[in-house]
C-alpha cells in the first residue's frame, strides 16, 4: 500500500483477521445475533457502522484533549447518538423506503459496544488520522463476520440470497426442493447465529494457534 505506512495499514488489516472485534474481542455480539437473518440487513448495518465508527472516532480523537475524563462516557454516547440521528434523518429525507426497512437497526447502532469500545480504547489516545483508520478497520472486521453469518443464515434458513430464490421455489418444489431439500427454519433464530460465530472462531483459532488462550 503506497498510500498508507506499514503501521497504518496494520490498523485496518488487523481487525479484519487476528484482532477481529467479534471473534477475538467478542464485542458487538448482540447486533451480530439480531440482524444477520438476512444478507441485506447485514450489509446495510455494516455500511451504517462504517460511517458512524469512522466519523465518530475522528470526532472523539479531535476532542480527546478537552474532554473532561469524569464525563467522557457521556460525551461518547452523545457523539454516537448525534451521528445516528443524522444518519436516520438523512435516510428519511433521501432514501425513505430504505429507512422504513431499517427503522430498528439504525437505533441499534447506538447500543453497539464496538463503537463505545473503540472510542474508549483507541480514539481517546490517538490522533484523528489513526483513529479514522482504526474505526474503518474495526467496522470492516465487524462487517466481514456479519456478512459471512448473514450469508449462511439466509441461504440455509430461507433458501434465498439478497431476497432472490437461489435454491428454487420451496412452495412450487423447483430446483433443489424437487430433490426433497428443506429449509432449516432453525437458522433464522438467534441461537444459530451464535453457533455460526462459534464455528468461525473455531476455524480461525485452529488456523492460528497463537490466538488460543492458555488455561
Amino acid at each position: 500500500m503506497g498510500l498508507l505506512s506499514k503501521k497504518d495499514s496494520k490498523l485496518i488489516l488487523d481487525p479484519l483477521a487476528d484482532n477481529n472485534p467479534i471473534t477475538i474481542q467478542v464485542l458487538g455480539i448482540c447486533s451480530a445475533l439480531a440482524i444477520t437473518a438476512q444478507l441485506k440487513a447485514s450489509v446495510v448495518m455494516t455500511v451504517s457502522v462504517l460511517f458512524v465508527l469512522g466519523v465518530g472516532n475522528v470526532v472523539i480523537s479531535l476532542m480527546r484533549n478537552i474532554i473532561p475524563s469524569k464525563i467522557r462516557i457521556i460525551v461518547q454516547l452523545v457523539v454516537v447518538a448525534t451521528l445516528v440521528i443524522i444518519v436516520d434523518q438523512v435516510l428519511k429525507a433521501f432514501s425513505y423506503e430504505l429507512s422504513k426497512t431499517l427503522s430498528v437497526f439504525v437505533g441499534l447502532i447506538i447500543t453497539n459496544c464496538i463503537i463505545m469500545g473503540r472510542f474508549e480504547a483507541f480514539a481517546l489516545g490517538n490522533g484523528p488520522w489513526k483513529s479514522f483508520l482504526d474505526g474503518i478497520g474495526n467496522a470492516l472486521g465487524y462487517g466481514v463476520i456479519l456478512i459471512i453469518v448473514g450469508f449462511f443464515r439466509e441461504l440455509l434458513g430461507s433458501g434465498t440470497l439478497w431476497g432472490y430464490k437461489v435454491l428454487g421455489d420451496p412452495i412450487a418444489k423447483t430446483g433443489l426442493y424437487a430433490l426433497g431439500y428443506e429449509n432449516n427454519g432453525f437458522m433464522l433464530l438467534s441461537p444459530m447465529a451464535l453457533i455460526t460465530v462459534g464455528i468461525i472462531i473455531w476455524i480461525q483459532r485452529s488456523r492460528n494457534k497463537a490466538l488460543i488462550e492458555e488455561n
Partner: protein
Amino acid sequence: MAINTEKNSYTLFFAIGMVIVVGSLLAFVASGLKPNIKENERLEKQQNILYAMGVDENGDDPGSVNFISTDKVAAEFKTYITKQLIIQGDNVTEDDQAYLIDLKKEEALAKDESYERRLPLFVGEKDGKTFYIVPMRGKGLWDAIWGYVSVDEEMVVQGAFFDHKGETPGLGSNIKERFFMDDFKGENLFNGTSFVGIDVAKGNADPLNKDKSDNQVDAIAGATITGNGVTAMIKKDLRMYLPYFNSLKN
C-alpha cells in the same frame, strides 16, 4: 496549552457547551431536511391508499409488498382516486387535500363534545368497480398503528394495508406483511345486519382463511396485543362511517 480538565467548573462548562452545540446541530439538520421528509410522507400516504384498493406493483410476487413507485404515485393517485370526501355529521364535502387530514389531531379534537369530527373517505375506481377507502388509526403494543381498508358499497373488504410505528420486530411488526394483510380480502364487516367488524382471532380453526363470512382472520403468534389493537381499530374507526354507507344504500 494546558487546560485543567479535572475541574468541576470546567466539566460543567463543557457539558453545557456540548449540549448547545449538539442541540443546534440537530435542530439545523432536522429543519433543513423537513421539507424532503414531509414530501416523502405525503407520497407514502398516497402509496398506502392506492395499495389498499389493489393498485400496486405486486405482480406475481406472492410474498412482499410492492407499492407504486414514488415517481409515478402522484399521477396514479389522480387517476384512480376519483373523489376525496370529508364527512362531518350529515355534511359531505369534496376536498382534494382530504388525504392529508391528520387522524391523530382529529381524534384529539373530537374529545371536545361540541367538535364535529372530520372523517376523510377516498373513493376509487378500478376496472369499473368502486372502492371506498377508509383510513384508520389505533394503538398497538408499543405505539401507534394505522392503516387503510377498502370496502365496496356492501362494506365487504376489498383490500387492507396496515403499518405501525414501533411494534416488536418479527412479531407485531408482521401486521404489515402480505400473509396478514391479504387475509382481510373478502371478509365481511357485518354479521347478518349488525356491524361487528373483523376479529384478529386466535384459534379460529381457519388458518388458511377459507371462511370469509366468519368476521375473523387468523392472528399472528406472539402478537396478541398488536392483533387486538387491529381488531379494535377496525371496529372503532369503521363504525363512524356507518351512517354514510347506510345513506349510500338509500
